């Protein structure tokens, strides 16, 4: 049986490479702009499905809160459409955060592991779980399934590695009137 699984896995892997459907280049391009949070706030089960929906004209370009205004601008540029404000019904743009499990409370139910779209949670049944901060996209999908509410969203602090120089102040004092 194990052999069967290995063979089948290999066959699947092979098929994935061999019969890889040449992705729609437009979908790829849209997907490249999307933040890959995989949060589903847009109403689709991930960034790729949303990209497909945009490409097919099914979805609008302003449904991605993590991508924010800049993401919408890029999509508008790519697709030659007008820029739109982020549609409020899908959520608001928030500072980038990561999920953190309060390890004192966690009961090891694995529900969050099953919910995480990017496999960023490590743990096993009845063992405490931990989120790999580097891989967490901040999608918040692990929050609702947690039966003990032990997951918190913590905004990423600015560090020496992530600190950025600010845009220089407008040099002419009344230039903003123009």
């Amino acid at each position, binding site marked *: *049986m194990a052999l*069967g*699984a290995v063979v*089948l*896995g290999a066959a*699947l892997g092979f098929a*994935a490479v061999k019969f890889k459907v040449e992705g729609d280049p437009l979908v790829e391009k849209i*997907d490249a702009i*999307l*933040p*890959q*949070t*995989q949060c589903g706030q847009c109403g689709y089960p*991930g*960034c*790729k499905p949303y990209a497909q929906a945009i490409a097919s004209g099914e979805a609008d370009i302003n449904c991605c809160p993590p991508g924010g205004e800049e993401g919408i601008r890029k999509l508008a540029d790519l697709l030659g459409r007008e820029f739109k404000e982020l549609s409020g019904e899908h959520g608001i743009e928030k500072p980038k955060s990561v999920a953190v499990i309060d*390890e*004192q409370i966690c009961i090891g139910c694995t529900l969050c*592991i099953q919910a995480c*779209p*990017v*496999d*960023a*949670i*490590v*743990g*096993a*049944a009845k*063992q*405490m779980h*931990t989120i*790999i*901060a*580097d*891989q967490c*996209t901040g999608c918040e999908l692990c929050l609702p399934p947690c039966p003990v509410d032990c997951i918190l969203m913590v905004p990423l602090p*600015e*560090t*020496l590695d*992530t*600190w*950025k*120089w*600010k*845009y*220089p102040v407008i*040099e*002419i*004092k009344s230039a903003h009137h123009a």
Partner: protein
Amino acid sequence: MLELFRFPGGVKPVSHKEASAAAPITRAPLPKLLVVPFRQSATGAATIQVVAGEKVLKGQIIGVAEGAFGSAVHAPTSGLVRAIESRMLPHPSGLAAPCAVIEADGEERWVELSPLDPFDSDPEIVRAKIKDAGIVGLGGAAFPSHVKAKTVIDTLIINGAECEPWITCDDRLMRERADEIVSGAIILGRLMAAKRIFFGVEDNKPAAAAALHAAVGGMPPPSPQPLSREGRGAFHADAQTIQVISVPTLYPAGGEKQLIRVLTGIEIPYGKLGPDFGVQCFNVGTAHAVARAVQHGEPLISRIVTLAGNFARAGNFDVLIGTPIDALLALGAPLPDTDRVVMGGPMMGFTLHDTAVPVVKASNCLLAMSPALFPPPKPAMPCIRCGACTRACPVVLQPHELYWYARAKNFGKTQEYHLFDCIECGCCAYVCPSRIPLVDYYRFAKSEIRAREREKLAADLARERYEFRQFREEREKAEKAVRLAAKAAETKAKLAREEAAKVGAGETAIAGEPGNTETALAGEPGNTETASVAPVNDKLALIAAAQARAAAKKAAVAPQNTAELTPDQQAQVAEAEARRALIDAPKDSA
């Protein structure tokens, strides 16, 4: 006489070096409390090796080099580690990072030092010594020296140009400690099997150049067994191979790539390093630190810092790393109208958010500023494309174009116009008649581009993991189907065998009809009918087997998704496991 080359552009600001260059280097008094950041530069991190409450000796290692570009950190004096905590660093961001707060005991007791004979030691041992001594570039970038000294080169350049106005720490060091600088240069030269060593000194520092000349002349004759690698020529320390060269005073002649250009004619583009062209460049301060580390075993725990600008007593001080800048400033007696302090020179230095921050290895100068001495810039005007910036740019960029695109946040274009070749020397902004803070725009664009690249990387990783997860779910589904199918087949075969056995026992009457309805249903997974047909003891055996499998599975429980983790992530997992053990332990004992 060596032929010198020109680098493009450059500016000639008034040097203002006289006041601080006049006085000899003074040792700064030992402060009560020292704050030593574990991170001394943009790249160089160190892993903390001490805990609060621990006693340390002067020169004791308190942080070991982390990663490829890390560098070690040492206790600058003997005393007690009061705390390991986050403190504000001397950095343009004003952000905090972990530091060791050390209370000096005033005894200045050294750890046991182990000097090396640089001419009788394996290059790897010498390099390890440099690494352990925490030596980084003292010109300002603080890049770890052991990393720079890894390759074999033709020409070693020792940078004594010190082109920024006001700063004189290298000038004084060359005048007072030329012997050790030359020794350090020779050690580095041997390490890299260099054929020649050039000292580049701007021609506004004749005394420093003369001191180096004298030191080179007074060097001992070449050792009988010079180190050589890869069959390269032996290195002879004589006038032919070591030259002290005066270079024209022109800012930024002390830029690494500019000095290499002036002395060798080689132009090194962005993304390439000196060794790609057979040259490497170290600051005179670094060479001095190398000599101290190798010949005396002393780690890098102090440096020369210039106090210049709005001081009553400008000068140069030998300062322990970690000395609070407040304490240091007091030595120069800043004038009452001092309104801010810049770390570094006036062309590239940054304003300190707070003067409580400590001196770090990159702190070459503290420039006290007053509105009279450094008048605040008048309001900026629009760019008139006059081209003054393009003529001043030492990298032949088009600063006005870069400004245009950076201002419009058209980052793609800034990269096409080679934004990352910009060395942020400030020449363009210095000459700009419209007083546009050009460098601010470039720094902004660079950090935005870097942030985007980080985000892109994270997004790609997330996409990959998301797609892998989907693939895995598909696979698991398929595997489950296979498993169930196999199980059903097994059951069917067993049934068939039993039927056959019954037939063998002589019950032939029914055996003629194997295709009865029950067996046909066996193909359906989880069909209970099949089991009910089988004898009861078989059923029990199956249940037992399933229980055993479940038990085994439970015993062999392992975290999921842990395959193919990076060392960092593994470390995180390990940490989590450790915490888990801590949490589990009391539970078990309870």
